């Protein structure tokens, strides 16, 4: 093992190219992971934030707020389900908002929610005409105490504070009272307005399964857990599936590259290994040295790549590529790469085992 580390220290050039290639692959993995996280986070924050045991849509809504209508009688049926403690209405309207100080065509994309039960991190519903804004809207110039005008009807809403990670479909969340949401919806989207008492969705708290709610409403509802509702948002599971496949094949490429590199290094050193074995070194010691080198090279590559991805996150202007770099995604990508390094390196095990000590004497 000492020999392996010594070689890395004294002949770093030998490992430089492999490290560069692995760094590129690690950047790819981390970038893809961060891109997926960014896309999902900006689409699902408002749902993930719900402090709920079930989210209820109407049966034909396909988990879309815009297509869902929960009539008061359905709400009553949900409230009477055994185990249900609290039920609150939830609705959204997605519009452009005029921000004071911005140009007349420079609008912020907002998703204005009306809610009865406060999501995690969001205070109780504010007074009519007020809203808590998601902090992503700060990038659009939104500030606390500001009045923004929403939609073509220029519905005024006062921003009274900020909340985090509550975006929806890539638009910054605004959290307002039922009345503010209803008036904003009716003034700006007459085709989507709803009668009093009708909500787009219900948030349910209590010891209750989503299936029990749907049974109680005779199939008039389509209920999900919070995780289920996140995955049911159109496009989310498709994005995850596609990205995970791409990440998987990229890891396979890393595995093959590491396997190739260490197989070549092993071939190069067969004679040397023969001498080491003749001097009493075990195959496991030699292979252990190779593994250490693979792990060190991969760790260096992952560290450099992690730094590069963080730098990329800083350099990429807000609103262009939606990446969300997190320590978790960097560490998981590095771990996957390390696993690929160990498996790839083990391709050389057979060759190390085959080395005959007698070859040292020709």
């Amino acid at each position, binding site marked *: 093992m000492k020999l392996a580390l010594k070689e890395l220290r004294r002949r770093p050039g030998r490992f430089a190219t492999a490290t560069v290639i692995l760094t590129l692959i690690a950047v790819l993995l981390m970038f893809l992971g961060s891109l997926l996280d960014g896309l999902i986070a900006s689409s699902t924050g408002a749902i993930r934030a719900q402090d709920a045991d079930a989210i209820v849509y109407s049966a034909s809504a396909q988990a879309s707020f815009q297509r869902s209508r929960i009539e008061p009688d359905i709400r009553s049926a949900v409230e009477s389900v055994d185990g249900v403690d609290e039920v609150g209405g939830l609705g959204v309207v997605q519009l452009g908002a005029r921000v004071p100080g911005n140009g007349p065509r420079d609008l912020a994309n907002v998703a204005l929610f009306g809610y009865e039960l406060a999501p995690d991190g969001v205070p109780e519903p504010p007074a009519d005409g007020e809203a808590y804004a998601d902090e992503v809207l700060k990038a659009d110039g939104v500030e606390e105490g500001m009045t923004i005008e929403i939609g*073509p009807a220029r519905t005024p809403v006062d921003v009274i504070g900020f909340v985090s990670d509550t975006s929806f479909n890539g638009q910054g969340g605004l959290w307002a009272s039922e009345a503010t949401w209803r008036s904003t919806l009716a003034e700006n989207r007459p085709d*989507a307005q709803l009668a009093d008492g009708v909500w787009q969705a219900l948030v349910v708290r209590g010891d209750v399964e989503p299936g029990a709610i749907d049974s109680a409403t005779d199939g008039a509802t389509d209920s999900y857990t919070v995780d289920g509702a996140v995955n049911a948002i159109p496009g989310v599971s498709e994005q995850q599936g596609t990205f995970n496949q791409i990440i998987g*094949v990229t890891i396979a*490429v890393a595995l093959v590259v590491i396997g*190739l590199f260490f197989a070549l290094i092993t071939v190069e050193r067969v004679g040397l290994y023969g001498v080491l074995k003749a001097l009493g070194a075990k195959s496991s010691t030699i292979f252990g040295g190779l593994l250490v080198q693979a792990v060190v090279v991969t760790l260096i590559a992952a560290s450099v790549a992690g730094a590069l991805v963080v730098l990329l996150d800083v350099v990429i202007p807000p609103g262009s*590529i939606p990446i969300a770099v997190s320590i978790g995604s960097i560490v998981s990508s590095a771990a996957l790469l390390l696993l690929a390094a160990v498996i790839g390196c083990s391709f050389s095990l057979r060759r190390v085992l085959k080395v005959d000590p007698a070859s040292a004497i020709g």
Partner: protein
Amino acid sequence: MFLALKEMSRAKTRFGLLVAAIALLVFLILFQQSLQNGLITGFVGAIRNQNAPVLVYSVDGQRVIQGSIITPDLEAEVRDVDGLGTVGRLGQGTFTATSTTSSGDSLDATILGYELGDDGQGLGAPSELVDGRYPSGELEAVGSTGGDDAFAVGDTVVLQPGGFEIEIVGVADDIQLNVSPTLFVSYSTWSDAVQSVNPDAGEPLPNVMVAAPAEGVTADQLVTDINDRSLDLDALTRDDAASETPGVAQVQQSFQLIFLLYGLVVPCVTGLFFLIVTLQKADALTLLRAIGAPAKRLVASLLIQVVLMIGGGLVIGTALYFPLTVTGLGGLELRFETGAVLFWSILLLTLGVASSLVAARRVLRIDPIEATTGAGVGA
């Protein structure tokens, strides 16, 4: 040639791993190229492949059709612009539906309503049909092909809730919006569809105005005139409306970065492989030079191996990619991109050969006299 092939046949695992790595990378690049094009066509095909040269959004819409609302005041402003030839309304909504081809399963359908005109080809109609005819009245539609939910002439689409029925009378390629099956219907059919699923809905307003310039006026001029008319109007040419739909530029930028990284990995892997192999063969190459083998023959042998390895990777990678373009990916139609295959083949071959020049330089530096000292190219 003989040497190059002989060496490859004797070290199948070594060269096989390189071909496998290149093949996987080629597969990833081509798959993602198709994914990018499929996504963009699925996102904005309906905008790109409709016949109106100019689309007018409200600024509030942020260039998303469904987000835009044209109020009566804004509509009057548009109709009053000099240089305007013809103009029409376009409405859009997303609905839950079943169709005769979806075997009862629900699907997310996008419906675009336009003013049909005399022949069903009013502004906003699909540019070209692949089968059937344009709608001639209410409850008829041109449907999109492609993806898992491709429509066919004669299909019936039923909106839920309410059971509003629309018949497919024609189909067109690449007219999806928001990566969902898409229907082009008359404006009044769209308006009725909106009200059928939401009894509380008021009279829907058009989302976008579609326009064509008067004779002697270009689309760009008309766009400028409309935008000068009101700060609340956002006119775009058809191509700009497609490329500036939110999400399209981000998709392109993300994929360009990914392609750049993959494009760098391939020559690096190839260059590294042949450099190491050349170093390993140092003694043999020196000996070959000492017994009279010309340097250019050894370099040629190296380059033949490079071309064969990358060529093999390209063929296998393309073979892996082909089946995906037949089956598609969910609602996305992935096409076999011959242009992309050619572009990447030439680029990766060029970069691969260029990267192997480091190894070739080592070969050229061999001094035959080193055969008597054992220094070789590794020195």
